[in-house]
């Protein structure tokens, strides 16, 4: 990181390789289009390089660059042009093939429905949900990243979760008995 801050392009290229998947994932979850997410990720790394002098050494680079990507993606989905081009079904996320505790509780159909519901969310709500669930940012961090108030984060996240719950709740019956719903 110190080398990259000193202008070493090879060092920064290594950082890009290390974090490109995460940066791209944040973008594609918000914009829902592969080509747009590629552009967003690329722009995020460029802006990250330009802002490296403000990055504090010792802090994790991943969340920092992911937030830049989320901001760019969020600005994209808010633009009128993006609303016209919204293709919610193009890159819906599919359940992973990995076996895990929840995979045994939730069938693939539930995952497909949830993916579709996520794609159907307004971009602003999807951005908030992505940053909270996938990036585990606090409301304040989300607010700072997206340039909105913490109250707006709270309300948008609540509405997003309610829509997703409504979409998948018919498929959660089998999971209910297996997955813990306790706090």
């Amino acid at each position, binding site marked *: 990181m110190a080398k990259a801050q000193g202008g070493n*392009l090879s060092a*920064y*290229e290594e950082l*890009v*390789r290390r974090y*490109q*998947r995460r*940066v*791209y*994932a944040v973008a*594609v*979850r918000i914009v829902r289009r*592969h080509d747009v*997410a*590629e552009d967003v*990720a*690329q722009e995020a*790394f*460029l802006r990250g*390089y330009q802002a490296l002098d403000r990055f504090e050494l010792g802090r994790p680079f991943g969340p920092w660059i992911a937030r830049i990507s989320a901001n760019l993606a969020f600005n994209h989905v808010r633009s009128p042009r993006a609303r016209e081009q919204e293709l919610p079904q193009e*890159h819906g*996320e*599919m*359940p*992973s*093939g*990995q076996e*895990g505790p*929840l*995979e045994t509780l*939730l069938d693939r159909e*539930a*995952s497909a429905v*949830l*993916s579709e519901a*996520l794609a159907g969310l307004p971009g602003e709500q999807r951005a908030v*949900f992505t940053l*909270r*669930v*996938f990036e585990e940012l*606090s*409301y304040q961090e989300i607010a700072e990243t997206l340039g909105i108030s913490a109250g707006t984060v*709270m309300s948008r*996240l*609540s509405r997003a*979760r*309610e829509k*997703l*719950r409504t979409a*998948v*709740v018919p498929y*959660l019956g089998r*999971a*209910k008995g297996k*997955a813990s*719903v*306790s*706090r």
Partner: protein
Amino acid sequence: MTAHVYERLSAFLDEELPDADRADVDLHLESCPECAQRLAELRAVDALALTLSGDAEPGPDLSARVRARLEKSREASRPRSTPWWWAAAAAVVLSVVPWMIVREAPPSESSRPVTGEKAAAPEKDAAKQAAPAPAAPKVQLAPPPQTRKGLSPSFNRAAKPAPVARDAKKRTDMAPIDGALEDAGSGEAFSPPAPAAAAPEPREEQKAERSDTGRVRAQAGFAGAPAASRRQGAQDPELAAIDAAAEAYQRGRRPEDLRRLRALADEYLRAPERAGAAHVRELLAAAGAEESRGR
């Protein structure tokens, strides 16, 4: 039982509620199975979302594309700094060169024609610093008008003073002398001035020599007379004899030559309306004057 807390369940799940609100929701959940169930479903949605893989990955060349754009951006930013550098260099040159020219110019420079010669001053100055010249007359510090070592031939050609202007000046300065020659009737064919641009340096020296001779001859009184009469003598043998006697007297100042000159002149002037009468009378007068000075 209080009202349902559906709107606050998301923030309760994220532990983002203020303490007071959180206590209220906690209390409500203990007595409301509906809200508790909904909270469990929200938690399941999050868990389900986390199982969704972002199976789409960025292109394999993303890092290379980022680097290429960064390098391009760097290239684009370099010209912005170049003008600053060149401007600084130009400022230094513009401030130093005039100073060196002024420093190089000798006091007598003001009388010299202003030409491109001065552009060579910095280089000459540098040469002098490299090899300090011994104490020399100030005039030697000034470069020869047409030769400046260390400069390219093309520069020397360009910086050479214009011969037209200098020669024209000389011709004007020499005009009185040339007039004296003609007035003295030296007899030498004074060719009209050659085109100034083609006039070489030796011609000026020759002209100076001529003007000196002419001045002496004019002071002698009959300086140009023999040659002038020789021109006429080619057609008049009597006049040619008079001229020969005058030249002989001029050379040796011998009395017999003077007597011969006077005798021939008297004979010549006896006949009226002779073409060279005036010339002969001048020769006689001059010879008489010369004889008086000799006494």
